[in-house]
């Protein structure tokens, strides 16, 4: 695992970091695909997929640390892998019999580059509900999906949809957007993760063949819960990676910047801010690693949960990013310094998955 992280760090600082700001402005699709290609060559893309299916077969905490490392250079790039990993997790959660054909699709596209996948999570918003119905022996999917990461780039969409009005009537299906010619809605124009534009998928009675169903009802609900759980854990990792970058930039700036009679690192208030940032960073990091590793601990109760790490880490990351911009003063607000980008990215990460107040409410 240490080796993988080392390779990833080198890759991120060479291939991702230097171009991240430019890509934030122009959403350079070609560059992003070349990052994807190279990540694949390094084995980063197939991290989640078990070795017997041709992947690298690493555990969740390794994936989390890889995302953390990438996110400290560019959260937008990290979010591309984040959504792909979660899509792989959907397949894993689907259970043994279905595994191989889906992994085959994800790994071997006939070309040299594996296709990008993503997950459409159900939204609480009624106008974004996807409904699956049976008509003349055909399964038809209809609706405008919630905003989805990787939407503009992905070929495969694992979608959690409804067959009835109840929450339990959930079904997990696979949509091949490319071959089924499915249109996207307008890009959302989110303030962060700009290189990975979020958009809804528009499904107008798209036919779903039975072999593209990963689970129905109770089975689907279980797949959904495991997938969402992984999503939350990986979001926490991305948030901490971004916060790490914000912290180290703020620290460096404080060392270099003169104001109020000395380098600002000598002002107690700046020390207090940096100290608090570091405290949140270290607690957050250990929290997400622990929660991603909990299955290996084998403790059923009282172990950390990914959704709590997500809530804690993204809130902490936002506070860290806000303070990092503040320490940079006027420069922090300018695009060139790259800290305001972290602030925007982190705010989007905070709202991915279930929003933090909703996590607290649903827990009880």
């Amino acid at each position, binding site marked *: 695992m240490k080796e993988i992280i080392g390779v990833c760090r080198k890759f991120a600082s060479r291939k991702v970091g230097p171009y991240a700001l430019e890509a934030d*402005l122009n959403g350079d699709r070609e560059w992003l695909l070349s990052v994807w290609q190279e990540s694949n060559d390094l084995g980063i893309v197939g991290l989640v997929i078990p070795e017997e299916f041709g992947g690298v077969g690493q555990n969740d905490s390794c994936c989390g640390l890889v995302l953390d490392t990438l996110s400290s250079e560019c959260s937008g790039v990290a979010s591309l892998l984040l959504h792909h990993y979660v899509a792989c997790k959907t397949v894993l959660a689907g259970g043994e019999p279905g595994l191989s054909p889906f992994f085959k699709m994800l790994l071997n596209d006939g070309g040299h580059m594996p296709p990008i996948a993503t997950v459409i999570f159900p*939204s*609480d*918003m*009624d*106008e*974004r509900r996807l409904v699956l119905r049976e008509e003349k022996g055909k399964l038809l999917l209809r609706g405008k999906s*919630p*905003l989805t990461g990787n939407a503009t780039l992905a070929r495969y969409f694992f979608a959690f949809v409804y067959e009835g009005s109840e929450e339990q009537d959930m079904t997990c299906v696979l949509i091949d957007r490319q071959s089924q010619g499915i249109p996207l809605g307008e890009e*959302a*124009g*989110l*303030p962060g993760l700009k290189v990975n534009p*979020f958009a809804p998928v528009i499904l107008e009675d798209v036919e779903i063949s039975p072999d593209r169903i990963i689970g129905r009802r109770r089975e689907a609900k279980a797949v959904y819960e495991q997938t969402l759980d992984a999503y939350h854990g990986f979001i926490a990792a991305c948030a901490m990676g971004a916060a790490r970058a914000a912290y180290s930039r703020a620290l460096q700036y404080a060392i270099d910047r*003169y*104001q*109020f*009679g*000395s380098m600002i690192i000598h002002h107690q*208030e700046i020390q207090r801010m940096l100290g608090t940032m570091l405290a949140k960073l270290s607690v957050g990091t250990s929290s997400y690693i622990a929660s991603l590793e909990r299955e290996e601990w084998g403790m059923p109760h009282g172990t950390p949960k990914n959704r709590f790490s997500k809530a804690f880490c993204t809130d902490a990351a*936002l506070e860290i990013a*806000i303070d990092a*911009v*503040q320490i940079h*003063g*006027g420069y*922090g*607000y*300018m*695009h*060139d310094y790259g800290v*305001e980008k972290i*602030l*925007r990215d982190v*705010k*989007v990460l*905070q*709202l*991915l998955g279930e*929003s*933090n*107040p*909703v996590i607290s*409410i649903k827990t009880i």
Partner: protein
Amino acid sequence: MEYFTKPIGLLAPVPDLLRNAPSLIKMKERFPRYIGRAEKTQVFSRRLAREIILPKALEVDTRSHRDPGYVDWELWRQINRTKATIGYIPEKLGGLGWSGLDAFVFLEECITACTGISAFFGFNFFGVLCAFVEFRPDVCLKVIGEMVEAQRNDKPIFWAWSITEASAGTDAEDARAMATMKCSAYARKLPGGYSINGTKQFCSNGSLADYLVVTVCTDRSDPLHTMATFFVPARTEGFSVGRIERKCGQKASQTAELHFDNVFVPDENVWEPPGRGLRHTREILSVTRGIIGMLGLGIARGALERCIQFASSKKVRGHYLIEENWVQIAMADMLKDIMVVRAKCYDFAIALDTIHVLRLLENLPVKAALKMVPKAFILGESLQGLLKSPALARSVKGLKDWIVTDERVEYCACQGSAIKVAGTDLAMEVSSRVLDIVGIEGMSSCYGMEKTFRDAKGAQIYEGTNQANRLEVFHQEIGRGLGL
């Protein structure tokens, strides 16, 4: 925009000034014209904000993101036709005759609609204020004359006030900090004037400015005692605009780098001599920091209103988002903070009318002159020539110094600092919290809430970082009394 339908806030059918600031009801009994005008200003500003600014807010933000130098002049002209661009000029002379209270009421509505656009035309006032606090009658009348003329001809005149340098931000705003400030720009004495060299940073509207007011020291090893204030028309040889910054938010308001290469300023344009520059800066800050607090409040209100519009039009699991109990509590909590900060903002605005530079308009000789002397004569060149007489200038300045004492300037700076921190921290908190309520769908740029989030962060930084403003409050209210 289509989701802006519910009759609250900017879309409220009835003005709510007295409802929002109930102490004004008592005040109205005593000063019916003063409060009555503020009520009218609210109706006027809300309409302007709703009909002119709000529909353009997102478009201008997107265009300015692509090109930081973009200006929507048609929008400026629309605003200009309402005279809001010269609202602070007395009615008799062609403006709208706003009091400080009127100006704050106006800002609240406009910023609720769009911070960037409001800053674009509103920060012009900061530059003009530089001339007003000088209170040289000939300069003031010339400025007023030009601004009124420009408004009538639909031709913009922009003023910019520039103090920040690359190596010194907040250091340029406070005596303790200025003593140790590292300056890069400096002015050299030449026969008949000064020559300025160096670069200034982050100047709002600097790229659009026709006139600049710049603070520069004459001895870089002793900025505190040699800081001076210069008036520089942008066409002066040697002046050039550098890069226009690409900001996180408030994109419609341009922030530019300014270069001075042997820019000659004749003695008559030295508004404050070396050693008096900081006093000039402090006097402006004592007004503008409170304004930035109000700006923060406007951002918070804009965020909350958008959130209410969204939550009351979108359904989750069969009911409206706004029907959720936790959402109601969160909204009430944010509104509570907005109410509290607003009360302090209006209190400060009334203080500016009572003990600060705006009080001068209430002063008997000024009032009498405005009432009795014809407009053409006031703005005419003969009076301006007459007012150039040093004796007269001295006596007018004496009148101003009698009202705007050093003590009052420092007091208002401290009050303004407290409001600035309260307002802008609230802006950041509310603009972030509303996004937690509306979730990723509500974060789409079309709902405007992500924009308020981006806008808010800058307000915590400019006009003195919130940390520096807190120190200001400490030194004035606690440290001074204890001899610290």
